[in-house]
């Protein structure tokens, strides 16, 4: 290379460099709102300063007013886009609004105009980049913020800074493996232009309650603390797969102050309410017929002077999982506790769920799935990618431990707060609230559909394997099997009616673990609709008894092995009056194979029968045994007869007078179903009782 050429190139470089420097310094010139800077536009300056002042007044009132400061600030910005403080404040306002990512250009510009504009600048930029998933830039800003801190300030803020950095590193990993979901807006029947959030659903997704801050709030008031309308609770039901327009639940649920729903029971007949009094307390309400009861304050074991913010029922209704920030027994910040009803039906002393679930950071929004063992909750700790993330953990009844919480993954979780997540019994859908610019305004409720791992497409190929053959040989492909994880439970639901009048009945539904011979849960059907819903987690043999005074009880048996897939069973029950000739099938009486020995699983049903005979002392009944058509007629008759006798013997042993009881073995004479299928034969093998006189 010749010397002149080299010189030319060097000069060119310097010129370019100077040009860059020059443009940078021109850009980086902080322009104050002064007369000197705007000699030609005094009126404009006056107007702009007024806007800055308006914005500043709102800004100084704290972050709940930030979003209102944006408009005047933007007007001032239009006049003078190069003021460092204005850019900083505008950025900060956006960061606390729904449009958080809009903060980035303003904060960046503030930094280029005057890096010293505010000591928080690096931190805010870090947060903004964090929300925008610009992980490395966020980490770099958080680190810069840290280097500027000293002494106590550093000691105090360091854990938070490190936490942010850790969350960015978590986020970097989580976004690499996104989960396959559809996220759909729940639609205009649910969502409004106002803030809609905190959805809860019944197990079969037929009912949704949620909280909203709308101008039509009961009492029409605004909470000065949040600069927004008071919360009210809304309800919607789903028909033919579509949500019907949500209705304000009205009094006594909604009051003039904040009323926010929390957990809804699996059958949609009970729910928990958060009310802002006493630092935040939890209440219960129950659906009686078609009206909700006045919210009942939960006892002192649950509510403290601290903030009890949310709760949910276990599917058997016997426990509540709730969140409190009380310091006593806490592992840090808000924690999740469980309280179980004592023998008298009172909520007992709560227990912290322990360090597998609760962290030094906040936990919120516990939701126990209708399977009774999968807990969905939000946490700022674990491997959250920012704010609260949603996690799930499964309880092992044998080891009495929770599994390591699993982050639900991106895009369900985001760097922002993801909280109050509920999941349908099928495990297919989740519901939660979030802000999306394409929504109906403010926060909206969204439905998440879990798609599971990607289903592989299968390609087909062929080769000319044999040279002497012109026809190619198709390659044998075996498509890999993708196991689709399903919730392991059965939802049993239906309507209970009076067999004669067809009117809905409020009846007791008793769920019994036949092997353990204990009542797991008791529910009531709704008096005005007769509807009931029970959740039967896999792995048990369930006896189900539907009872009501003056009616014969109805029994069902569900043997649901651990391997059973999710299913929804609709079983309408028509209860029979205690009348001569009425008969019922005792579905929870079991005998040893080919014998007349009563199995221990039958105890509960036999006790129910004993109780009925004690309750109505005049009742005389016939116990009959029936078999399927397999085996010889004589043999079947004999077997069914000795089985009926075994039941009678049991009743006599429990003090029922023998002359009230008749036993008969019908063998295969009275089938109630076909004997050609396994299912049919199973139905035919049964024990019945019939009322002879009352």
């Amino acid at each position, binding site marked *: 290379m010749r010397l002149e050429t080299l010189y030319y190139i060097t000069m060119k470089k310097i010129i370019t460099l100077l040009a860059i420097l020059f443009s940078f310094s021109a850009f980086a010139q902080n322009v104050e709102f002064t007369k000197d800077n705007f000699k030609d536009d005094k009126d404009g300056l006056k107007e702009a300063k007024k806007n800055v002042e308006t914005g500043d007044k709102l800004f100084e009132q704290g972050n709940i007013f930030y979003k209102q400061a944006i408009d005047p600030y933007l007007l001032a910005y239009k006049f003078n886009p190069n003021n460092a403080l204005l850019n900083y404040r505008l950025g900060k306002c956006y960061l606390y609004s729904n449009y958080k990512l809009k903060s980035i250009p303003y904060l960046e510009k503030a930094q280029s105009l005057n890096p010293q504009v505010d000591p928080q600048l690096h931190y805010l930029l870090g947060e903004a980049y964090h929300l925008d998933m610009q992980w490395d830039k966020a980490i770099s800003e958080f680190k810069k913020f840290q280097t500027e801190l000293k002494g106590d300030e550093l000691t105090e803020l360091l854990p938070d800074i490190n936490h942010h950095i850790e969350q960015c590193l978590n986020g970097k990993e989580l976004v690499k493996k996104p989960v396959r979901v*559809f996220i759909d807006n729940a639609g205009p029947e649910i969502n409004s232009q106002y803030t809609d959030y905190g959805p809860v659903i019944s197990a079969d997704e037929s009912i949704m309650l949620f909280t909203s801050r709308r101008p039509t709030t009961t009492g029409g008031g605004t909470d000065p603390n949040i600069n927004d309308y008071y919360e009210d609770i809304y309800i919607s039901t789903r028909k033919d797969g579509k949500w019907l327009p949500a209705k304000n639940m009205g009094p006594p649920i909604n009051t003039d102050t904040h009323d926010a729903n929390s957990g809804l029971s699996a059958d949609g007949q009970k729910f928990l309410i958060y009310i802002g009094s006493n630092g935040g307390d939890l209440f219960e309400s129950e659906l009686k017929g078609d009206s909700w009861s006045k919210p009942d304050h939960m006892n002192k074991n649950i509510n403290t002077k601290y903030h009890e913010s949310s709760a949910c029922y276990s599917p058997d209704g016997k426990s509540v999982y709730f969140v409190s920030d009380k310091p006593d027994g806490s592992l840090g910040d808000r924690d999740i506790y469980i309280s179980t009803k004592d023998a008298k039906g009172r909520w007992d002393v709560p227990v912290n769920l322990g360090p597998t679930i609760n962290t030094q950071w906040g936990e919120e929004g516990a939701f126990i799935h209708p399977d009774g063992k999968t807990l969905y909750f939000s946490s700022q700790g674990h491997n959250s990618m920012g704010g609260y993330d949603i996690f799930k953990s499964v309880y092992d009844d044998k080891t009495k431990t929770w599994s390591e919480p699993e982050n639900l993954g991106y895009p369900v979780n985001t760097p922002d707060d993801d909280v109050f997540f509920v999941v349908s019994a*099928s495990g*297919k859908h989740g519901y939660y609230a979030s802000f999306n610019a394409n929504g109906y305004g403010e926060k909206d409720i969204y439905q998440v559909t879990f*798609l599971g791992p990607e*289903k592989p*497409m*299968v*390609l*087909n*190929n*062929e*080769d*000319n*394997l*044999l*040279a*002497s*053959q012109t026809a*190619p*040989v198709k*390659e044998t*492909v*075996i*498509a*890999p*099997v*993708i*196991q*689709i994880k*399903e919730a392991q439970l059965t939802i049993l639901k239906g309507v209970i009616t009076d067999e004669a009048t067809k009117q809905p009945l409020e009846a007791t539904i008793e769920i019994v673990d036949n092997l353990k011979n204990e009542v797991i849960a008791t529910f009531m059907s709704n008096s005005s609709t007769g509807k009931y819903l029970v959740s039967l987690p896999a792995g048990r043999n369930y006896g189900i008894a539907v009872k009501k005074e003056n009616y014969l009880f109805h029994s069902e048996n569900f043997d649901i092995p651990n391997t059973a*897939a*999710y299913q929804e069973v609709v079983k309408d029950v028509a209860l029979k009056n205690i009348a001569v000739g009425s008969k019922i099938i005792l579905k929870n009486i079991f005998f040893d194979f080919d014998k007349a020995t009563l199995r221990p699983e039958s105890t509960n049903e036999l006790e129910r029968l004993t109780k009925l005979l004690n309750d109505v002392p005049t009742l005389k009944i016939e116990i009959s045994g029936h078999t399927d058509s397999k085996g010889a007629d004589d043999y079947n008759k004999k077997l069914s007869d000795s089985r009926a006798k075994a039941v009678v013997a049991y009743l006599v042993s429990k003090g029922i007078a023998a002359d009230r009881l008749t036993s008969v073995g019908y063998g295969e004479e009275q089938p109630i179903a076909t004997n050609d299928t396994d299912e049919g034969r199973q139905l035919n093998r049964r024990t019945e009782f019939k009322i002879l006189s009352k």
Partner: protein
Amino acid sequence: MKKIVLTLFAAALLAATVNAQTDSIVKAKVLDDGSQDAEKFYNSGIQDFAAKNFPSALNNFDQAIAKKPDFERAWYNRGTTKFEMKNYSGAISDFDKALTLAQNPDSYFSRAQAKYATGDKPGATADYSKTIEIKSDYAQAYYYRGGIKFENGDYKNAIDDFTIAITYKPDYAYAYNDRGSAKRQMDDLDGAIGDYNKAIVVNSEMAFAYNNIASAKRKKGDFKGAISDYSEAIRVQKDYYVAYNNRGSAKYDAGDYAGAIEDFNKAIALKADYAFAYNNRASAKFKLKDYKGSVEDCNKAISLNAGYGYAYLNRGIAKEMLRDDAGACSDWKKATELGVESAKNYTGDCK
């Protein structure tokens, strides 16, 4: 006289090229006396055969046999002519007759070919074995017998036959290729690649051998190597749609979905009714999130082959992403009916 002999010799050569695998037409003996009418017809038949004028050849061989019923070579040549005319049963009965006149290994071999053509694989195998019994170094008989074993899934014994064929005919490119394929079917991919490479050393213009190397490499997960060998196959045979479809699949495996689509497009341009290429293009479109395009390609594959289970499976997967749950379910159920096991796992949520 000398001229006739030369002509006949040339005719025999031509016949040999027509049917590369079988020296099916045998030249006549030197004619030395004017009364040999049968031989004259016979020679004319050979000329016709060389000119692919098979009806005329048949007529001439008929005449030769009429003149001389024990003319063993005429029976043989007429059988070969019938074979070319796809009259396999006629060919078989002519070879039968030739074999009553002389135990010529070629007659057994040709009868084996004819039997195979009628689908009589055991008969063909027996005749190849008979050929070998008479002439133990008959490489082609081993080769074809090996081919039948391959088709029957008896890869191990097929390999043995191909190996003997190669022993007697060390430049037997086809035998190397087919032995490679048998090894591949036994999952000996390295052995397969070795044999395919030997086939190419002998004959570097065999497109299918390059294709087969590539497929073995693809099976090994060497997508780059596979793509390069498929390209060789395409270089040798420009209209080799099978190789385009396969190269597209290797590109798919390597994550180059746009490149895959280009190849599937070419396969389709070359063979408009190639259902596999439509199905595979549907897969690549799915990966590029073009779910609508994916469904359309599956539709086409299904319209070409109504029993195409995998196309139903794939269409269901694409429909799920288009939020057509009912459509997806009905496709997965159809795929299950058509024997695609994996589809069963997807129907759990179906109503």
